[in-house]
């Protein structure tokens, strides 16, 4: 039921996105000294497509009523940084400062989405008459 509420759905997909991004950034930081490693990032979050749901994930065709429709969650696209500058002599292109800044940014986004989520529920609780 709550999945239909757009704010909650939005906050949920935002938090999913941040968690996935955190994973990719952790890979970059862990490989900060690996020769020839090129860092990756996640395609930026598209609020519009989540709001309008104009870009629904690909669904599997059901040809028989006995088939179970699998739930397909939208995969976040991992993109590789295509810059070839600022790489060290061993071909590693991870800039540690940049990665740490991105992690901080992702954390703020997560906090914002989580607060939004909580506020939405607080509003529901107020509407139910259960105090502030």
């Amino acid at each position: 039921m709550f999945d239909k509420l757009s704010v909650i759905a939005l906050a949920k997909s935002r938090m999913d996105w941040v968690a996935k991004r955190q994973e990719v950034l952790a890979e970059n930081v862990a490989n900060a000294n690996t020769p020839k490693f090129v860092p990756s990032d996640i395609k930026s979050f598209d609020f519009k497509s989540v709001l309008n749901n104009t870009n629904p994930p690909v669904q599997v065709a059901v040809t028989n009523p006995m088939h179970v429709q699998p739930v397909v969650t939208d995969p976040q696209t991992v993109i590789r940084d295509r810059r070839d500058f600022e790489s060290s002599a061993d071909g590693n292109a991870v800039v540690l400062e940049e990665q740490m800044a991105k992690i901080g940014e992702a954390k703020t986004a997560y906090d914002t989405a989580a607060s939004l989520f909580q506020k939405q529920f607080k509003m529901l609780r107020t509407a139910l008459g259960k105090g502030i």
Partner: protein
Amino acid sequence: MDELKKVQNIALSGMKAQSERLRVISENLANVDSTAQTPDGTPYRRKVVSFKNELDKATGSQQVKVDKVRPDQSEFQRKYDPKHPAADKDGYVLAPNVNPLIEMMDMREAQRSYEANLAVISSSKQLLSRTVEMLR
């Protein structure tokens, strides 16, 4: 949620690799004066660590592993010390090809990388606890 757990695994693999590197650096530094015992012997040869990234099948993430610990093929230093048991007929002794300055620099880099991985772990922990806080 699962991703945040993976984050910790990845960062842990990074910390493990960096501590392995630190171990090799400490070996090099400890053996900075390990000369040969005899005139035709070789002194301690410096070791270098290299990393590689490896796909962890269980989590599907790119983790970091220590690739190989290889000997540094650079020239040995020569010191003039005729009294030394390993001195050749001209009075020179082969000393290890370890430069303490380079080792210190390497050590700092390993330390910084380790700290960066630690910061990633603490960040993912904060996200996890924020998620739990949402229940309140």
